């Protein structure tokens, strides 16, 4: 392959990606269409005044907030967050167990968000991995498991990688395990979660009030599991699901597609993010995940147990498993207790039952520099996104628009 070709191809592909971000004329047309369809839904079909659409993934919430999408669409469309933020839903119990290991002189590798995550119960007076580091523990922030592997191999000391994430990272973790990349001194703590069971759980909560009329489904999770994973959900709950990219035009197109399906009375799973997602996903990735992990009932922070929603290493890979090696206790349904601070409404926010501004702690005691709830920590946490963009109240924004 010659470099001239690579350069030009790359420029062309990058331009395509940027074009989904900065195409003003297309944006205007999409918004006009959205207004038309909403008008049709409310006037002709007499839809309720509010149409809730759930943007399941934290990164979609970032796009919606960063590009001000709520202010571009009619106020009758309410975009609510979903539980698609792994940092927000990892039980406090596993943060406490990681702190315990760190204080026992085991090197902990973790993503930056997890480092700041606050546990509900202290371990020897320590509430987070960052505090553990301040007490002299070896806690290292990494951006990928590959970094942890290289570093652990270099120093040779006992280490644990805190494997947080959804299906998106599961195939990478599986590849690392299957290929024997992990050195003997590095163990893996699998707290990976699965998204389709969480979407079903969330929609079940909303089934009674029937306000959630559509879901913007996670694009990057779907690159692995395929759009087919959502087909059953859209049929079971009778709502359109659109697998969306993460640029603003992607999200607007997905909203339009959901509304158009509502007009036609359809409830299909459709891919908008066609440049990266296929119906079947990546079959080799799915095979690797099945080979390495077993599916278990798992706890979600502030929510409780969701059946068959977590992944643990299979017994044949126990030589890599931090659970067995260091006696990390898994959380059982009988043990689970509500693990959010008093007043924190993080669980309601990620289940689409509340906006961050409806939480009594939001931007009072809970801020990005002093997060109380997990949703204020992660780059994908709805409260953190709202706080960093100074979105304090959606209704106020709409009122402001009306005045202008």
């Amino acid at each position, binding site marked *: *392959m*010659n470099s001239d*070709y*690579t350069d*030009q*191809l*790359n420029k*062309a*592909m*990058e331009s*395509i*990606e940027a*074009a989904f971000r900065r*195409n003003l004329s*297309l944006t205007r*047309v999409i918004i006009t269409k959205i207004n038309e369809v909403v008008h049709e839904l409310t006037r002709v079909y007499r839809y309720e005044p509010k149409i809730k659409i759930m943007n399941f*993934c*934290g*990164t*979609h919430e970032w796009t919606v907030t960063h590009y001000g999408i709520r202010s571009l669409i009619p106020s009758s469309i309410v975009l609510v967050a979903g539980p*698609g*933020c792994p*940092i927000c839903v990892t039980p406090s119990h596993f943060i406490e167990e990681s702190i315990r290991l760190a204080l026992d002189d085991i090197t902990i590798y973790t*993503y930056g968000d997890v480092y700041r995550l606050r546990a509900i119960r202290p371990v020897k007076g320590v509430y987070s991995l960052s505090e553990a580091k301040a007490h002299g523990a070896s806690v290292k922030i990494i*951006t*990928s*498991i*590959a970094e942890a592997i290289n570093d652990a191999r270099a120093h040779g000391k006992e280490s644990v990688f805190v494997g947080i*994430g*959804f299906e*998106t*990272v599961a*195939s*990478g973790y599986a*590849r*690392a395990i299957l*290929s024997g*990349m992990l050195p003997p001194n590095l163990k893996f703590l699998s707290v990976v979660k699965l998204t389709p069971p969480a979407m079903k759980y969330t929609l079940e909560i909303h089934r009674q009030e029937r306000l959630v009329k559509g879901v913007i489904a*996670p*694009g*990057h*999770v779907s*690159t*692995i599991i395929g759009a087919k994973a959502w087909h059953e959900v859209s049929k079971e709950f009778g709502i359109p699901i659109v697998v969306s990219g*993460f640029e603003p035009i992607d999200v607007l*197109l997905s909203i339009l*597609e959901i509304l158009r399906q509502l007009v036609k009375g359809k409830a299909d799973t459709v*891919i*908008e993010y*066609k*440049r*990266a*997602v*296929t119906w079947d996903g*990546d*079959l*080799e*990735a799915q095979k690797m995940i099945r080979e390495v992990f077993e599916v278990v009932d798992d706890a979600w922070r502030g929510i409780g147990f969701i059946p068959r929603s977590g992944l643990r290493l299979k017994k044949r890979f126990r030589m890599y498993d931090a659970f067995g090696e260091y006696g990390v206790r898994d959380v059982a349904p009988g043990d689970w207790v509500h693990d959010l601070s008093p007043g924190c409404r993080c669980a309601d926010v990620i289940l689409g039952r509340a906006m961050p501004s409806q939480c009594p702690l939001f931007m009072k005691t809970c801020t990005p520099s002093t997060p109380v709830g997990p949703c204020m920590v992660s*780059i*994908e946490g709805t409260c953190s996104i709202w706080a960093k963009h100074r979105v304090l109240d959606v209704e106020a924004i709409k009122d402001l628009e009306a005045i202008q």
Partner: protein
Amino acid sequence: MCWGTPAIVIDVDEKKMMAKVDFGDGIYRDALIGISSDRVTRGDIVIVHAGVIISKLSLEGVLEQIAFIKETMGDEAADMLKPYENLVSIAKALRDRDNE
């Protein structure tokens, strides 16, 4: 957890498990190949999430996306999509030239 960043594949190791990728800053970083390893070759634009390659952006996918936009938006979008179609044709021409 969908935060993904596009990157260019610089090199793939012999076992096709790891790749060196460039996020556009000129620094080569290791990324695990989380998808079918046959799909990843030097020069590809991939999406990397937490150090794992989770997808490859394909020209065919972009064309399908353009078709989706046309279908959703109708004729009004046709003119506005021209730049995308031009880009795709340039990229295709480059690929064909490389294969000659």
